[in-house]
């Protein structure tokens, strides 16, 4: 299967996105922001539809829309316990507005169902070199920002009130992290599609957390699992002809179920 350029591109693209999704997804799950990951991918879909309508590459629209949404979600006022009290409402309404815009963009671009299918389910086998370069750029930027936030992000995620009391700028950290998450969701959606980018962001990270691992081991397992799911999905898709997102979604749920079973047997 590696004699074809499109397969080699797909494997490289999936690897880049897996490293990003495994790392960012771990922090999203730690901060209980699975809904944000879900929403950002779908918001990216609307941006991509808008970009296509205006004649730009879909990834550029995904990035712009997801970033704007990330800033709005991240900038929400924090409640007394250091966690935004209206977080789900804000995310839900930003999502609703974006999906409305997405429907309008699809209508205007006059390429309704075929474009929507591509954006929603992804086209990992259609990744070209410019897209691959753009994905690498987004990944380097996101991982660089995440490394910079590093310790403060972890502290503010685990003990928001204590972190603020020690002088950690929790709101700034939250806004920058949501921008990173938005970029990562856009990159994942390019590979797995808006609907299943979520599974690559959340599945491996949730499994790593379920195993009760500390941050370093947890992120390593999350990245490894994301890589296993995306590469495994590509290989199984090659063999079975079933779509890649099908295998990614199924594998994510299965790995979480196995981790859950392992924990149950290990617990006294």
């Amino acid at each position, binding site marked *: 299967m590696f004699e074809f350029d499109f397969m080699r591109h797909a494997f490289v693209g999936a690897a880049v996105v897996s490293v990003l999704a495994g790392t960012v997804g771990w922090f999203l799950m730690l901060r209980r922001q699975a809904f944000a990951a879900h929403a950002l991918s779908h918001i990216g879909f609307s941006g991509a539809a808008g970009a296509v309508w205006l004649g730009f590459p879909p990834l550029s629209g995904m990035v712009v829309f997801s970033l704007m949404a990330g800033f709005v979600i991240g900038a929400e006022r924090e409640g007394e316990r250091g966690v935004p009290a209206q977080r789900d409402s804000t995310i839900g309404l930003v999502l609703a507005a974006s999906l409305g815009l997405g429907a309008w963009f699809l209508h205007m671009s006059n390429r309704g169902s075929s474009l929507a299918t591509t954006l929603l389910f992804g086209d990992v086998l259609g990744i070209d070199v410019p897209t691959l370069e753009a994905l690498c750029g987004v990944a380097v930027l996101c991982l660089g920002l995440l490394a910079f936030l590093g310790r403060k992000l972890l502290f503010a995620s*685990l003990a928001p009130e204590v972190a603020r009391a020690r002088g950690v700028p929790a709101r700034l950290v939250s806004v920058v992290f949501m921008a990173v998450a938005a970029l990562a969701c856009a990159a994942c959606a390019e590979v797995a599609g808006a609907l299943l980018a979520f599974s690559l962001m959340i599945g491996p990270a949730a499994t790593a957390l379920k195993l009760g691992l500390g941050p370093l081991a947890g992120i390593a397992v999350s990245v490894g699992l994301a890589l296993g799911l995306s590469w495994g999905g590509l290989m199984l898709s090659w063999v079975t002809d079933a779509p890649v997102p099908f295998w990614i979604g199924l594998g994510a749920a299965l790995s979480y179920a196995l981790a859950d079973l392992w924990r149950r047997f290990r617990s006294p």
Partner: protein
Amino acid sequence: MAENKRVCCQPERGLVLRDVTLTAGSTCVLRDASLTVPLSGITLLSGRNGAGKSTLLRAMLGLIPLQAGEILTHGLPPTQARQHIGYMPQSVTDAALLLPAVSHVRAAVDGVRWGLPLRLRARREEADRLLALTGAASFAHRPLGLLSGGERQRVGLAQALAGSPDLLLLDEPLAALDQAGQERTVRLLRDLTERLGIGIVLTSHETEALSGAVTRGVQLADGGLHVRV
């Protein structure tokens, strides 16, 4: 008990509130109140429910702005005194309950710095020291969510001690503990003040459990602070 206008006099090493007015929503917590307490022993901040005890602790940390006056620790305003103050909120973290307790403490050890942790061994050793100090070493590698309320309090105390503060602000550390748990916590707090030479200011309704351990009491009522030594 008496209205306190600079009752004690150790302003250079103490916690000083000077002409403080503080409100929480429509409630006036303090109105032109002043107080000086030394940073030694255990100070009990008491008051009825809703009087604003937690709000006052948060103001001491600089998390809530004052309407007037100033709060100084070692002569420094809250934002500059943060390295001197450790804090344990009323509900010890309920985030990331699947992560081992030790990870929560390690994150607090160097969590005020940007970037990635580089000195992993030093961070690990410091977290182990803090967990040993609070008697949490034996369950440090269990997920936080599997610990009892008292055990989580000890993890929270270890987090509060990160950065070697000389003042701990503890919000209701005895709440939701049974009598035996309260007695163990009070013994631990007294032990910490003696071994580390730090001061503790805590809020609590459990005055009986604290009797004998408290160095001084401060009652928050009617917008004022009333001291009992």
